[in-house]
């Protein structure tokens, strides 16, 4: 197991380097002058030039890149051009809310997706199956911003059941729960679809296998056959999918957080990019990439735990 984790970690290094390169490329390639951003719109050209020299922006690109790598190696992500706060403190403040949003989304959507997928498999061809699959297709196809706006329109405006602006507080407080409900619901709705579809096909496949037939022949009750012998084995590909989808959720969170004005990493990244706050944008991209790598690592480990064949070299 340790070898597997180590292998995966080693593979992550070039990925991380690629992300750092991409993050740095942002600074060089996209239009916008960090010195002007820092100086403000009414600054004189002299002030802008002084800031450019101070920031080292007039040095060769390669020199700038190696200096950037050096700073990253020291854990120095710099300061936000806009707020002058350290990037680490800005990211630190946003990681908590995004983690809460992920938890709040996954905690209900994974069990529900698996349950719906299993029901669809068990009642294959029935109206229930078709209804669940139609729901899944809708979840996969509808853009996240549309789901967000519909939820705001109906739940927030028409029925006035839940707030739709900002974060009310930590997840364990009532205000925090009320504020996170709609963003978590929006994200969850796009998550259920793929999970339910994968669970359905996987369960269908497993239910045809010999060990399931044997379990039935032994006289086990149908729920026991499905839950213990069918679902358990069917979950292996579902775990992979959940891992991959959790990564994509981070992308969905960018939109969701922006629409619900939820102060997470996604909204921070969008705000930083739109305001040409390059150090912060680089930091946010780095964190999102690290999260993606970490999720994949966890999936690999879980996969190995669920299916010992994976550990075999």
């Amino acid at each position, binding site marked *: 197991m340790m070898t597997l984790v180590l292998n995966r970690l080693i593979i992550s290094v070039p990925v991380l380097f690629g992300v750092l390169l991409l993050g740095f490329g942002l600074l060089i390639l996209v*239009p916008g002058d960090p010195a002007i951003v820092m100086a*403000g719109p*009414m600054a004189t050209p002299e002030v802008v030039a002084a800031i450019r020299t101070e920031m080292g922006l007039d040095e060769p690109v390669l020199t700038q890149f190696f200096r950037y790598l050096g700073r990253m190696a020291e854990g120095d992500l710099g300061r936000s051009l806009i*707020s002058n706060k350290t990037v680490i403190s800005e990211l630190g*403040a946003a990681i908590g809310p995004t983690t809460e949003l992920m938890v709040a989304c996954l905690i209900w959507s994974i069990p529900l997706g698996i349950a719906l997928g299993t029901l669809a498999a068990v009642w294959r061809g029935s109206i229930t199956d078709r209804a669940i699959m139609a729901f899944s297709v809708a979840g996969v196809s509808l853009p996240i911003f549309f789901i967000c706006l519909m939820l*705001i329109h109906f739940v927030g*405006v028409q029925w006035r059941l*839940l707030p739709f602006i900002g974060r009310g507080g930590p997840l364990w407080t009532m205000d925090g729960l009320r504020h996170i409900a709609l963003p978590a619901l929006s994200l969850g709705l796009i998550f259920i679809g793929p999970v339910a579809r994968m669970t359905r096909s996987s369960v269908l496949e497993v239910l045809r296998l010999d060990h399931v037939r044997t379990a039935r022949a032994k006289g086990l009750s149908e729920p026991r056959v499905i839950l213990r012998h069918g679902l358990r084995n069917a979950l292996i590909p579902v775990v992979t999918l959940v891992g991959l989808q959790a990564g994509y959720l981070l992308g969905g969170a960018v939109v969701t957080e922006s629409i619900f*004005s939820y102060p997470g990493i996604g909204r921070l990244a969008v705000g930083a990019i*739109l305001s040409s706050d390059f150090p912060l944008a680089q930091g946010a991209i780095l964190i999102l990439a690290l999260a993606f790598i970490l999720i994949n690592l966890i999936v690999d480990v879980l996969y190995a735990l669920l299916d010992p064949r994976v550990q075999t070299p």
Partner: protein
Amino acid sequence: MKRLTLTAAVALALPAFAQAAEITIVREVDSNNYDPHRAVARAAAEVLFMLGDTLVSLNPDMQTIEPGVAKSWEVSEDGLTYTFNLREDVYFCDGKQMTAEDVAYSITRWVDPETKSPVAWRAGDVESVTAVDEFTVEYKLSEPFSELLYQLTQSFGTIIDSTNVEALGEDFGVSGLNGSGPFCWVEWTPRDKMIIERHEAYSWGAPFHTNTGPASMERITWQVVPEENTRTVAVLTGQSEITQYVPDIALAQLRDASTVEVVRSDLAFWTYFMGFKIDKATVSDPAVRQAINLAVDQTAMAEDLFFGEVEPAYSYVSQGALDWNTSLNDTLLTYNPEEANRILDEAGWERGSDGVRSKDGVRLEPIAYVFAGSTWGKISESVQAYLREIGVAMDIQAFDATVAWGRLATQEFDMFGMSFPYVSSGDALNLYFRSENMPTPNRMNWNDAETDELLQAGKTALDDATRAESYGAVLEIVHDAAVWLPLYHEPMVVAQSADLETVVPHNIYGAGLYKGLDLKFKE
């Protein structure tokens, strides 16, 4: 289990009990920081007015200077020395008494080159600011500045606490600010929210406030909501009590809602215009600039693009602004495409086979730089359509705000789109028409010795009449030369909960709620 689930669902769905005297104000963007000398955004002024005080205050009529932390002031005959007598009952949020030393420190820091304040010029040509005694400040200028008192009413003139500035260093205005305003800094999360709480000791509000302190509101949350539809429904559903950032298209709906009241003030001095870089061949001929002014129907644009929620502009500053030259009222260029075509024909600009006019090898195809986004998108496209009618093919090039400021400092374009706040005619004219301000903010390259002389005379005038006469003359010169194409004056529109007493919007720097002293729930 069922009961538990039901209880949890009901508890989640129930709206939280509204806590007394707390409001959420939604707005579009945040400021980059809240250091009064470094932050120039309207978003900064909105909060700084609530967190701090200025020496003098501007009445909502936008003309009358009233006391602030200075209860009175004298100006020397030569206009070079202002002596401010401070109130003795002003305290910062941490309980420290405000003295003349704090005022001297604040102004000195504002103009100190080390501070790199982009608005240092607004403090005048400061020779020294000293504390004569504990509550008397002597403000010495090297040359008179007739608008000094108006400039001192702005958020840049906020009196700060030197101990606080030195203690916070680079983080001043980022992690805190110890001000003497009606509210105190609690917490700022950049791009998300600023939370401020009532300054309990506050009792020194300017005389024009119904409530001179302490504020009625205990806590205010300035929440950033970038999405305009979300801001609108936030006010409709009571998730925000007040905002001045609702789209024009939503105002009719908000006016119809029984829970919302929409308040409008036309004394807002925020003007949108397109300027001409007058030394470019395409627009160097005054006849072309005049024709362009006559070709555009600002009234129709205000109706069609902004649902009648803005005031069409024909003057370069609002006609309600201090020192507006009323003799120009009847000579302003208004929509008359026939006259525009006649002027161009007469000036020798002939239409080609494609309908575009040209003369001496110069085709009337001005390049216009504008800000990317829906507002300038629709404005510039509308202007483009009007200009096509007179044989001018305007080429629109839109840039993101982060890039646009840099591009607008170049000589690459013929026309540009801009909007700006001002407190008076002189404020606007000194910023845009001084030759020393080329290439930015004088992006027109307006280089006229007479204008410079008159602006200097207005700036250093020792009496109101001389100042008004000088600025009036400048207004006449630049209007005659058709240096700009004025588009519209944006009024101040505030959408507020019907549960609040009706606010009187203040228009200083577009910060409609000003000090927040008059924000109050109805009894």
